[in-house]
């Protein structure tokens, strides 16, 4: 019985190796958390990537060639991110897409920066599709890094702007967020926007990430403060439990969130989600005919809805393919040429054109603030609830101007 086990090991190895021979070498590497604790987010990105590459190829590809993604799984860890990056570079990749959380993105971005410094003749271009930590386009910016998602400042600005213009924000706001970079940035953004949008921050909480089992005590604090609106950047479990506690405690305050539309959240929150707001890149009902068509095509190709991060991936690839198309044939995969092109490219998007700022490589993106309602035209997550648009903000309205902390060294 014992000797067999070595063989079993070998057997599994061999079998797995054989599977791999089917996957061909492709041009653009995509590093995602396909396994691990953030696998759900990785799935969203993957759907977006699959759709966008398919869309680009259906339109003829770039320079007459079809492009295909090669997925590398970073397992949601920074070590995984570093490993996959090195694997990608050693496989000859010049342009790398990355999706997932800010910590991994920051690690990969730092690695890319170091590689480019050590190998100035062989730079690598990185596009971060979903990281929302502000520092990535501030202190930690560098020429070969682009970010195609929003950040805390933009999301909060969109939420408070939309809600206050519709008189839904009230005068008392409570901020509850997770105690790490993202949550703290959300917290700071809520406080910063208090004066311009004329509300008072009556309380703010930073709690342990993914550790709190029961948000009832926090809900009681919110109730005590008399807040009319609660702004939170929580995601996944922290968001779900918070909303359930709110619903069962019969709290009258309205929730303004960033990640409520991620897959599984609305289904899991159930009735507790009704009446909550979310600032997101895509709401089908707000996009008119074009929005509906996009939703339909996305569903056909991937079997899933384009929610939250999936849209960031689509935007990233649309911009990338247009940038590559804009450079001459020989420079197709030249990171410097493509990066320069990316700074000038625009791409079509359901809610308005998108482009990237040259100063810090931050995306300019329109955001839609939607309300979870049973009256929405398009339902999400297999439930009877969907997002009803409250306000669509143009890219100019959501933009938060750079504060000068990004000192980018440009190539000559």
């Amino acid at each position: 019985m014992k000797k067999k086990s070595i063989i079993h090991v070998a057997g599994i190895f061999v079998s797995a190796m054989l599977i791999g021979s089917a996957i061909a070498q492709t041009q653009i590497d995509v590093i995602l958390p396909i396994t691990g604790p953030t696998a759900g987010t990785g799935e969203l990105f993957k759907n977006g990537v699959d759709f966008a590459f398919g869309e680009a190829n259906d339109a003829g590809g770039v320079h007459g060639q079809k492009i295909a993604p090669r997925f590398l799984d970073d397992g949601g860890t920074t070590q995984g991110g570093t490993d996959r990056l090195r694997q990608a570079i050693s496989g000859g990749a010049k342009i790398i897409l990355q999706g997932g959380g800010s910590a991994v993105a920051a690690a990969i971005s730092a690695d890319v920066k170091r590689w480019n410094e050590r190998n100035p003749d062989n730079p690598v271009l990185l596009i971060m599709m979903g990281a929302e930590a502000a520092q990535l386009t501030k202190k930690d910016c560098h020429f070969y890094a682009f970010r195609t998602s929003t950040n805390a400042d933009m999301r909060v600005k969109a939420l408070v702007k939309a809600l206050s213009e519709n008189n839904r924000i009230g005068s008392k706001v409570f901020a509850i967020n997770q105690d790490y970079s993202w949550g703290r940035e959300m917290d700071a953004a809520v406080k910063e926007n208090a004066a311009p949008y004329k509300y008072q921050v009556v309380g703010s909480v930073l709690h342990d990430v993914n550790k709190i089992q029961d948000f009832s005590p926090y809900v009681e604090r919110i109730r005590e403060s008399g807040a009319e609106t609660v702004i939170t950047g929580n995601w996944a479990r922290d968001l779900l439990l918070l909303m359930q506690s709110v619903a069962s405690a019969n709290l009258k305050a309205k929730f303004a969130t960033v990640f409520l539309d991620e897959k599984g959240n609305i289904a899991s929150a159930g009735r507790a989600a009704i009446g909550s707001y979310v600032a997101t890149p895509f709401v089908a009902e707000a996009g008119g005919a074009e929005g509906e068509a996009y939703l339909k095509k996305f569903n056909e190709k991937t079997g899933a809805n384009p929610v939250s991060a999936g849209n960031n991936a689509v935007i990233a690839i649309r911009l990338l393919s247009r940038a590559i198309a804009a450079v001459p044939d020989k420079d197709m995969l030249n990171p410097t040429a493509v990066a320069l092109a990316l700074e000038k490219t625009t791409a079509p998007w359901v809610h308005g054109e998108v482009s990237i700022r040259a100063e810090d490589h931050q995306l300019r993106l329109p955001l839609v603030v939607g309300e979870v309602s049973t009256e929405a035209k398009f339902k999400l997550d297999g439930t009877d609830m969907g997002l009803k648009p409250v306000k669509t903000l143009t890219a100019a309205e959501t933009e938060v101007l750079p504060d000068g902390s990004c000192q980018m060294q440009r190539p000559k």
Partner: protein
Amino acid sequence: MQYLSENHQSTDREKIFILLLLVFLVVGLFALPYFADMAFINAMVLVCIAALYAMGYNLLWGQAGLISFGHATYFAFGASCTIMMMAGIEGGSSFPTPFLPLVGGAASFLIGIVAGWFATIRTGVYFAMITVAITELARAIVQRWDTVFGGEAGITSIRTAWGPFGFQKLIDVYYFTLVWTIICIILLWFLQKSPVGMVIRGIREQEERVRFLGYDAHALKTLVFAISAGVSGMAGGLLAFTNESTNVTLYEGAYSTTVLINTVIGGAGVFLGPVVGATLTTLFGYYIANLTFHWLLYMGLLFIVIVVCAPRGITGLGVDAVMHIRSGARLPWRLICKQILGWLLLSIGSVMIIEMIGAVLQPSYGALARSSGVAWPPVNVFGINWSPSSPLTLSGIALIFVVALVLLRDTASSAHRNVLKLAGAIVQKPEAGS
């Protein structure tokens, strides 16, 4: 629990064989960069780090019989301290870069003394629970103490050149890691052979007796814990060196469980067992992760198979084979071939089923089915497109399983008897020299 590797004297022939094997291995490792690509060299750096971590961990398990479920703290603390020193060097300190891992090792050694003193008050499951509690507490503290540990953004630094060494290229990092790993393993070997090592093993077997012989068991266990933590800290330092960054996720449970899995798969009873386990799982995770997204499931299955069928790990199997030969019997080659084929088929069949289930249950599969009009679009496994509903596929898989089970059926019970016989035989034989 008796460990076969300690209860027998290697014959001179065996010693020479093992020595040659090791020399060959080391030479191969040093020659690696000449015929491997960057991805593989990077993988080998991680393998060395994981191997060193596991060797440090096994000092506690294999030698002292204490299973720790919270070793990530010492590994991560070593990494954190090393990166801080790297930042210090970057800022102008004259600490020589090549000695960086010692910083991590010393730091973890110190906290290992404190943690070990508390943890070794108890044994067995209680010891394990204390290590869990300590690691959870450490994690919580570290994740809050952003000013020192950098939060989840972490601390970044760079490798500063020193003397003739640039340390800027991956190859430099590889040799650096390899040299430190080998040095530490050799030192661990001498520790194991020394009188201290012997007393520790004595504590593992019969603590009370060792106490009566006048030794302070608690102090010794604390020392072993501290050394184990220190070696793990050195491994952490090497990780900080190669990544040039650390963050607080290193303190989380996953890093404790990885080293446990490595040691179990490799075998805690043989000195280099954990190295084998670490190599296997690291390379497995590195390469298989790209081929299939269910690699964690395969790893879990592998772990269970090893625990149930090969409780002393892979190296334990090797030792059993050696003992088998030594006892005069010849290896039953026909049986082995049957087993190999049987397990191979079983693996292939399981992989096919798992991959198919995984593919079919994806939402994109449903979308593909709807858009292409085919009820069961083909799934790509092993480079061939199989249609899940075709009778060819289903009967093919069934056939694989049937043949596998037939091959394995008659070997099962006899193998089980053999294991018990060997275990029993060792226990009954008088201790013929150690």
